[in-house]
C-alpha cells in the first residue's frame, strides 16, 4: 500500500513517516506541508492512503477532502477530538488518530485501512438560488457602524472565516460579520458561484481552472466535488 502524508507541522510528518517505516508493505511516496501541493500531486498519481492533518492554514482537512474527485482512503491525524463525528460522515475516512500518535494505535489504523473498501460519497446539492436577475448592482455592508457600498462587479472572491466573511475586491478587502449562506442570497447568480463550502467566486474574474482548483486574481481556490458540475456547466467551453 502506498501513502502520502499531509501536515503543515514538520514534527508531525517526521513521526508519521517513522511510524510508516515500521509497517510492512506501507510506503511513503511523498510528504506535503500543505494541501495545495498535495492536490497537484494527487492529480497525477494514484495513492492508496493519505495521512491527513485536519488543521492546516488556508485549507482544513475536510476542505481538502471535498476537492478530491475520487478520494483514496484517508486517516485523519489531529490534536482535536471534537471532529470525530463529522469525520465519519465521509466514507473515505477510515480512522481518526489523535496526536501524539503511538505505534499501537497507528498500526490499528493501517490495518483498518487495509480492510476497508472506500465508497464514493454522495454529493450534496449546491445551495445557490435557481434563478436570478441582475437588478441590484451593489451591496451595502455594515463595517464599524457604517454602511459601506461595494459594487458586485468589484468583488472577485468571498471567503468564510469562522463567524465572518472576507469580501475581496480589486481595491480593498472587507471583513464583515456574516455567513456565506446569508450573503449568497444577496448576490446575483449570473456573477457569483459557490465553488466550495468556504468560497464564493465572481465567475467573471476566473483566470484559469486546473482540475479541482480555480485561479482568481492571485488566489488558488479549491473546487469541491459537489460544486464542480455547476461550474463546468456555466463555462463557455470550446
Amino acid at each position, binding site marked *: 500500500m502506498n501513502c502520502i502524508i499531509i501536515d503543515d*507541522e*514538520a*514534527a*508531525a510528518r*517526521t*513521526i508519521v513517516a*517513522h*511510524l510508516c517505516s515500521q509497517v510492512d508493505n506501507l510506503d511513503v511516496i511523498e510528504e506535503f506541508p500543505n494541501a495545495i501541493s498535495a492536490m497537484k500531486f494527487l492529480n497525477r498519481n494514484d495513492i492508496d492512503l493519505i495521512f491527513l492533518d485536519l*488543521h492546516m*492554514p488556508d485549507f482544513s482537512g475536510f476542505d481538502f477532502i471535498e476537492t478530491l474527485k475520487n478520494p483514496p482512503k484517508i486517516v485523519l491525524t489531529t*490534536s*482535536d477530538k471534537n471532529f470525530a463525528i463529522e469525520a465519519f460522515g465521509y466514507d473515505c475516512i477510515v480512522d481518526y488518530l489523535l*496526536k*501524539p500518535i*503511538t*505505534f499501537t494505535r497507528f498500526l490499528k489504523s493501517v490495518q483498518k485501512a487495509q480492510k476497508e473498501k472506500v465508497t464514493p460519497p454522495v454529493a450534496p446539492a449546491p445551495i445557490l438560488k435557481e434563478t436570478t436577475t441582475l437588478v441590484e448592482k451593489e451591496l451595502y455592508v455594515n463595517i464599524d457602524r457604517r454602511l459601506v457600498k461595494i459594487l458586485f462587479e468589484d468583488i472577485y472572491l468571498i471567503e468564510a472565516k*469562522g463567524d465572518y466573511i472576507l469580501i475581496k475586491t480589486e481595491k480593498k478587502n472587507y471583513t464583515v460579520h456574516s455567513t456565506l449562506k446569508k450573503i449568497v442570497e444577496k448576490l446575483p447568480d449570473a456573477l457569483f458561484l459557490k465553488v466550495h463550502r468556504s468560497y464564493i467566486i465572481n465567475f467573471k474574474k476566473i483566470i484559469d481552472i486546473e482540475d479541482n482548483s480555480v485561479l482568481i486574481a492571485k488566489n488558488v481556490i479549491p473546487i469541491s466535488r459537489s460544486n464542480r458540475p455547476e461550474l463546468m456547466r456555466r463555462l463557455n467551453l470550446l
Partner: protein
Amino acid sequence: MEQPNLSYINDLAAGDEVFKHKLITVVKNELPDEIEIYHSNMNSSAFAKAAQNVHKLKHKLGILGLVAGYETAIAYEEELKLGKSSLKTEFESILVACNHFINDL
C-alpha cells in the same frame, strides 16, 4: 510542576537513535518559531489566531511527554476561541519549561 521529558520520543524511537535525533532536531527547530508566533498574536490580542497557535503547540507538549500540560493547552485553546485568557500564565510557564528543556538537549 510536571516537567518535559523524552518518554514519548523514546517509546516511539524504540532504540532507533537516528530517528530520535532527527525528531529532537525538528522539534528544536519548530518549537521556538511556534512560540514566537503565539506571543506575537497574544501581544496584538489576536485570540483566534493564538488559539490556532496553541493547537499546534499542544502537539509539541504531547511529544515532550506533558500529559497535564496537554490538557491545559486543550482548555486554553477553547478559552482563547471565546476571547478569554485566564490560563495564559499557566500555559506560558509550560512553554518556558519546554524551551529550557529543548535547549538543554
